[in-house]
């Protein structure tokens, strides 16, 4: 059912791959999902359950074998201008400076050098990085700083949809919390539609308006998170919400099967 508020919609999407090691792998099976306009939706699930495939399909980097993916009511046929993807750490181009990395999308879109530089510097400030970092290379930065650069790059083209693939994985907890707050600040100002993939339940409950749980290439549960923002991880309502989601998941036979696998 089409809804004006649906920014991203998956309808009965199938996607499978053939790999040498594992043979036929079903990444998505009759997968249905919607992400509301301006909402922050988290997709939660264990490794290999199809989360990254989901994002690649939404970004137009891959095509479904069956079903359809819609973005803002239009079927996705390839990369769209209003979308940005923030992948895990490794997607920063190591041969480009921080400034060059941030402005990559603008350069692809043919924006001039001066405008790119100006935008990159504004974004460095926005993600709380000093301007002189702009000339450094990614490997000269800490893990947390690299994530900030990746966030700045994702924001560079001013996208209305932000797809994030475990963007804060692999950093220490305090840095991770800082980055999550950074993201929430950006989101509360710009109100992009964010589809955020994670395997951390706590991260999902802290960030999301809605959590979609995936196992075995399917969405098995959805939870609306009605907690007010800013959220406090130590507050009673937050802990209660976390426990409620955890209990609901543990009661789900499909989820338990996946965990046992």
């Amino acid at each position, binding site marked *: 059912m089409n809804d004006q508020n649906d920014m991203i919609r998956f309808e009965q999407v199938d996607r499978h791959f053939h790999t040498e090691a594992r043979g036929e792998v079903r990444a998505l099976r009759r997968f249905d999902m919607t992400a509301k306009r301006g909402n922050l939706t988290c997709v939660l699930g264990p490794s290999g359950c199809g989360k990254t495939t989901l994002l690649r399909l939404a970004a137009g980097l891959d095509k479904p074998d069956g079903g359809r993916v819609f973005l803002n009511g239009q079927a996705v046929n390839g990369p769209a201008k209003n*979308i940005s*993807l923030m*992948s895990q750490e490794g997607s920063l181009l190591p*041969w480009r400076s921080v400034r060059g990395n941030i402005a990559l999308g603008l350069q692809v879109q043919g924006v001039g050098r001066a405008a790119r530089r100006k935008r990159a510097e504004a974004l460095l400030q926005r993600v709380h990085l000093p301007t002189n970092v702009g000339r450094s290379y990614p*490997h000269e930065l800490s893990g947390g700083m690299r994530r900030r650069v990746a966030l700045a790059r994702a924001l560079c083209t001013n996208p209305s949809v932000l797809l994030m693939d475990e963007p804060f994985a692999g950093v220490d907890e305090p840095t991770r919390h800082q980055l999550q707050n950074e993201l929430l600040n950006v989101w509360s100002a710009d109100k992009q539609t964010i589809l955020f993939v994670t395997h951390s339940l706590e991260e999902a409950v802290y960030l999301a308006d809605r959590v979609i749980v995936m196992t075995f290439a399917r969405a098995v549960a959805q939870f609306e998170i009605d907690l007010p923002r800013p959220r406090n991880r130590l507050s009673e309502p937050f802990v209660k919400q976390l426990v409620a989601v955890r209990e609901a998941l543990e009661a789900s036979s499909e989820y338990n099967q996946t965990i046992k696998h």
Partner: protein
Amino acid sequence: MSVSRQASRIALGLVIPCAVLVVWHFASRHSAVVPSVASVVNVLIHPWQSPPTLDSTSLASGALISVLRVACGFTLAAITAVPIGLIVGRNRTARDILNPVIAAAMVISPIAWIPVAIIVFGLSSPASSMYGDEAWRYGMFDQLRYAIIAVIWMGAFFPIVLDTAAGASSVREAHLEAVQVYGATRMQRLRFVILPAAAPAIVTGLRVGGGIAWRVIIAAEIFPGTRSGLGYMITTAHDQAAYEYAFASIIVIGAIGLVLDGLLRLAAHRVTRWQVKERS
């Protein structure tokens, strides 16, 4: 790097050449064939002097024509091998078609192609193509034989193709997706991701190819009709037992090789700066 560290590096680098000089000096005193160090130095400090006993141009003009031949063959190799390497590295069909040919051709010594090059190009040169029978008037221009350049091209081509293909095929999907998500065209993917990611491998191929080209030229200058070049000078010096010219040519070959490798290494450092830092 500190001055003392740099001085010690230079000193260490001079140990073997100095030892060779000493051994050479004593060998020349006990042999009628080995030229004295002084006679070779005399040739080296008068590079423009035509050798009185040899049918050859001066050492300097011989070096110049050899460098020109290598420059032509190597540039052609780089221009053709890099695009082919990129295609082989990124396209499975191209890889399936070209890999057997490359694998077979790369094990053939470039010198073995000399007869084939002579059959294909004969003694023609850019000068003979433009001026016909009057080509001999154009000296160095006439000495740039197509056949010699083709053999150098063969020597340098395969290492450049193989390294470029290896670099292009190892580009990370995440890096490609970083530009694809913005709707990058095929050319933009090449410019922003594939070429910079493959640059370290391309530069390695160029260095290896350059080294081979420089080694091949000496053998290729035994071509019929060749009257100049360091390889030619070594051959004629051997025929006339004027070994001081052969030794001087060998020293010049080594020196030019050192300079060429230094230049390529400098270029490599610029292109692969990010990679060196990333490893450290």
